[in-house]
């Protein structure tokens, strides 16, 4: 128990956060790259074609993990936003601001691959239905969080708190995205995988495997990229502190 408490406190202080996460970067990058290569080869060459969509459904192996990440990263930003706003933790601010561009990219990727999939399958690139509109709003929320932060460039701590407020308010969009296909009649199909079981979704293991591998790969990529950016964020905002000087002399 003491170890967990100690670890928690270490991750909360910028110098030890910087030191500890430095060891994680390389393994995370290797895992992310390896799993992405394996998942893409498995999904594009070894998974069987779909009975209705043929090979076109394979874009799912990018689209679905990217969509999961777009929401997962926003949840991280929202929780870090609450911590940053209430407890004023610097590391939470760093994680929040480091996550925003990565989440925005995953959201853009989700929208783009969805449009490319929608044209041949549904017959349209875009439809203003609940799922697509709420995902587009998510992209604007990410841009809003980054925009508010950049607008207050004289005081990064105050800027981060204001960005946190936008992020927290935007949290309400997450359940809307998740349940949009159930609450409204939507052209978008329901969830491909349900944790609770049920009769719908993907049952075939050879189709499910690349999807889960890609979901893991995107998680590792996010961790790698976010920690890298959060470390740089701390170096930049704490540049007048002694630990940064020491760190730079050492390296």
């Amino acid at each position: 128990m003491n170890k967990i408490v100690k670890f928690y406190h270490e991750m909360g202080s910028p110098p030890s956060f910087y030191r500890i996460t430095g060891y994680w970067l390389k393994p995370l990058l290797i895992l992310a790259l390896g799993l992405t290569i394996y998942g893409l080869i498995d999904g594009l060459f070894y998974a069987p074609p779909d009975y209705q969509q043929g090979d076109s459904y394979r874009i799912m192996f990018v689209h679905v993990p990217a969509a999961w990440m777009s929401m997962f990263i926003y949840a991280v930003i929202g929780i870090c936003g609450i911590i940053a706003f209430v407890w004023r933790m610097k590391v939470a601010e760093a994680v929040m601001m480091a996550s925003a561009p990565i989440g925005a990219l995953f959201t853009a990727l989700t929208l783009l691959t969805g449009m490319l999939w929608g044209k041949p399958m549904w017959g349209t690139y875009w439809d203003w239905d609940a799922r697509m509109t709420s995902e587009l709003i998510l992209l604007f929320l990410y841009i809003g969080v980054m925009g508010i932060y950049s607008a207050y460039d004289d005081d990064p701590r105050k800027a981060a708190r204001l960005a946190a407020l936008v992020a927290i308010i935007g949290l309400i969009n997450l359940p809307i995205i998740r349940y949009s296909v159930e609450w409204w009649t939507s052209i978008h199909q329901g969830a491909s995988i349900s944790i609770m079981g049920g009769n719908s979704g993907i049952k075939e293991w050879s189709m499910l495997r690349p999807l889960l591998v890609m979901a893991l790969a995107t998680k590792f990529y996010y961790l790698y990229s976010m920690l890298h950016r959060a470390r740089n964020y701390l170096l930049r905002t704490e540049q007048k502190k002694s630990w940064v000087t020491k760190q730079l002399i050492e390296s």
Partner: protein
Amino acid sequence: MTPTRKRRLILISLVIFGVAVATAIFLTAFKDNIMFFKSPTEVSQNDYPENRSFRLGGMVKEGSLQRLENSLKVLFAVTDYNADVQVEYEGILPDLFREGQGVVAIGYMQNDQLFVAEEVLAKHDENYMPPEVSDILQTEDKQ
């Protein structure tokens, strides 16, 4: 927890609660107006917006698809297994369009009987499977 932190936590909880309630009220109030989505049953009961386009959703009725010669015009019936609506459409249909498949047609009612679609979208479900599995399922269904 220090009093300042407690105050901030209460403040942020109130903000989240307020935004959630406002969004819920907004979405409930506009539920019908977000999209005019009608089923064949509603259309057959004359419950549809006149002189403006709306969305008709349902299944393409088995055996109802007719292609008119020398044109891209197609005629088919959209059903919810309760009522049917005749739909006319001129254009290229999406890959997934077939009888027994879900569709969303955007258009207007020309008269009580005929829906003229400006756009036809195919809807697919979340069940992905290899062709062999689908064949097995279908033979099982027939037995």
